[in-house]
């Protein structure tokens, strides 16, 4: 099947001159590979209060992810691993979804649905890893429905090799007084296309996205995060921190769409980027759409190099340039890494970052 729709498309195509309307062609979702499949590279562990269901819950469908309808449909139909979860009651545990690409099984297309019943509280962690030299493909669609009062946390940790492709679509439906929170780390891959889209259709629903990314080499990073507000008193927070090195090309679209009915809705988004090289291409397309007037929307963006005064200060305390750089990257990512609810995983992420930064260079 061929995709005709733009991947990771901006909800309103007014930015043509900046070429940020959608992910670049080179980043298109590839044809489904003939081989290299097998469920051995995917696994899951359930926490209390969570069980699997055989059929895709209706509640989770009907909306689409930031990747777009066509990409969602392709991942849905081409998935080699589909799991649908039902959450009831309050669970302090964590449900783990693990994906590990290796030379024999470099490909994984996964479809996950999470139906959180009214008043439930659950945490899901997706860990996507690969062996160092694998040229893998990881495509995933995660569909979340949070019923009234439910509280869902989804942690996505992508630590793929620098030769892998990664597609990550998340679609979120938030009911009255429910909250969905995504903690997302995209730290590997040479093509990374990620888009989370939340529908805040009911009163006082909330969506929270805390994201970090690291891009180096000649990689392409493309993000498309959207919060659509139609319910009263709905709230969205989407905040991303990133580091770009070498010749990495990155685009981040962040849209807060206040539609009619979203009275007193509040939406904030921000992106903070650290640039290690002048050859990096960094594009940002923050967009706030208002058809409802009684709302508060705000975006903030900053991009820059490491402050030389700070570097000198760190040097005066004995840190060599590599240590100083690591400390500053850690500092930037810490607020997100600290939200990972498992020390083993936090250390895994830090170790992965450490390895990436061993090769990193700051260029003037």
């Amino acid at each position, binding site marked *: 099947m061929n995709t005709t729709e733009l991947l990771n498309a901006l909800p309103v195509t007014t930015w043509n001159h900046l070429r940020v309307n959608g992910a670049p062609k080179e980043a298109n979702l590839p044809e489904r590979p003939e081989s290299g499949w097998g469920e051995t590279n995917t696994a899951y562990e359930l926490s209390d209060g969570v069980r699997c269901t055989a059929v895709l819950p209706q509640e989770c469908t009907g909306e689409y992810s930031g990747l777009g309808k066509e990409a969602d449909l392709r991942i849905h139909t081409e998935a080699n691993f589909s799991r649908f979860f039902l959450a009831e009651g309050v669970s302090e545990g964590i449900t783990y979804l693990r994906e590990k690409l290796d030379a024999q099984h470099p490909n994984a297309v996964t479809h996950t649905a999470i139906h959180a019943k009214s008043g439930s509280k659950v945490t899901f962690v997706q860990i996507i890893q690969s062996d160092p030299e694998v040229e893998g493909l990881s495509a995933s669609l995660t569909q979340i429905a949070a019923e009234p009062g439910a509280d869902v946390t989804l942690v996505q940790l992508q630590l793929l090799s620098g030769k892998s492709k990664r597609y990550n679509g998340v679609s979120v439906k938030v009911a009255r007084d429910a909250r969905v929170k995504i903690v997302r780390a995209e730290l590997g891959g040479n093509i990374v296309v990620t888009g989370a889209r939340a529908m805040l259709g009911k009163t006082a629903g909330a969506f929270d996205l805390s994201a970090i990314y690291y891009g180096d080499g000649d990689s392409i990073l493309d993000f498309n995060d959207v919060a659509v507000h139609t319910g009263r008193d709905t709230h969205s927070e989407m905040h991303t921190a990133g580091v770009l090195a070498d010749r990495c090309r990155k685009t981040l679209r962040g849209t807060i769409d206040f539609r009619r009915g979203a009275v007193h809705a509040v939406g904030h988004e921000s992106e903070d980027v650290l640039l290690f090289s002048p050859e990096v291409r960094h594009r940002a397309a923050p967009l706030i759409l208002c058809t409802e007037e009684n709302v508060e929307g705000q975006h903030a963006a900053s991009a820059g190099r490491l402050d*030389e*005064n*700070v570097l*000198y*200060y*760190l*040097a*005066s*305390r*004995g*840190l*060599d*340039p590599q*240590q*100083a750089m690591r*400390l*500053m990257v*850690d*500092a*930037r990512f*810490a*607020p997100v890494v600290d939200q990972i609810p498992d020390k083993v995983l936090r250390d895994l992420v830090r170790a992965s970052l450490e390895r990436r930064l061993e090769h990193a260079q700051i260029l003037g």
Partner: protein
Amino acid sequence: MSQALLNVRDLKVAVEEKTILDGLNLTVCPGEIHVLMGPNGAGKSTLAAAIMGDPRYTIEGGSIEFDGEDLTDKAADVRARKGIFLSFQTPQEIPGVSLESFLRTAQGAVQGKQPKVMTFRRALAEKMELLNMDAAYAERYLNVGFSGGEKKKAEILQLLTLQPKLAMLDETDSGLDVDAVKTVAEGIKAYHNENNALLIITHNAKILEGLDVNYVHVLDDHHIVYTGGPELVEQITAHGFAGILKGADEHGG
């Protein structure tokens, strides 16, 4: 006479193509306390920056020898690991890095191995108590939202943690209230011993109370124009630089 710790010879320093220091000589031996005074804009901070290795200052001539090694062309981090420390006139704010983790990283860098968490914490708590710092500050981002005085105390906390061989304090007392100056002076006393040395830049005698100052230098006209004993501090705070500078001129600088 013991071997010099710091030996600055005929130093010429420029910033943005403007010569600030020229023909500057200074020798500091282990166990000594030197005080550096001089009018605003004379180049005191510039000297400290040049010794620390601030890349914005160009060393156009002369040499900086430390602990028997020529460090003139070495980067700041190398100098810091050799044992040079500077308490800054305006310390940097570093969001995202807690005071504690910063100090632990710095100590690891200077000593070549990361200190154990529990031992480090205990030692840190003791030092913070000595400096009258609220223990909660260990968790706060380095210098972010710290008051002027709190930043200076955090610098002295770093001094006590890193235990350098040479500590340069650039107006660490400015902006401190009376009690805080006393506390900082206590911190300096706790640091000082016969194996390390201090170069204290100040406009104020208070911070020197209880310290055995060996030499007082006056910097003006690009170099050190006068060197005397501790009595000079009183003289300058009472009568200003004019008398001394005039005398220095008569002696031919």
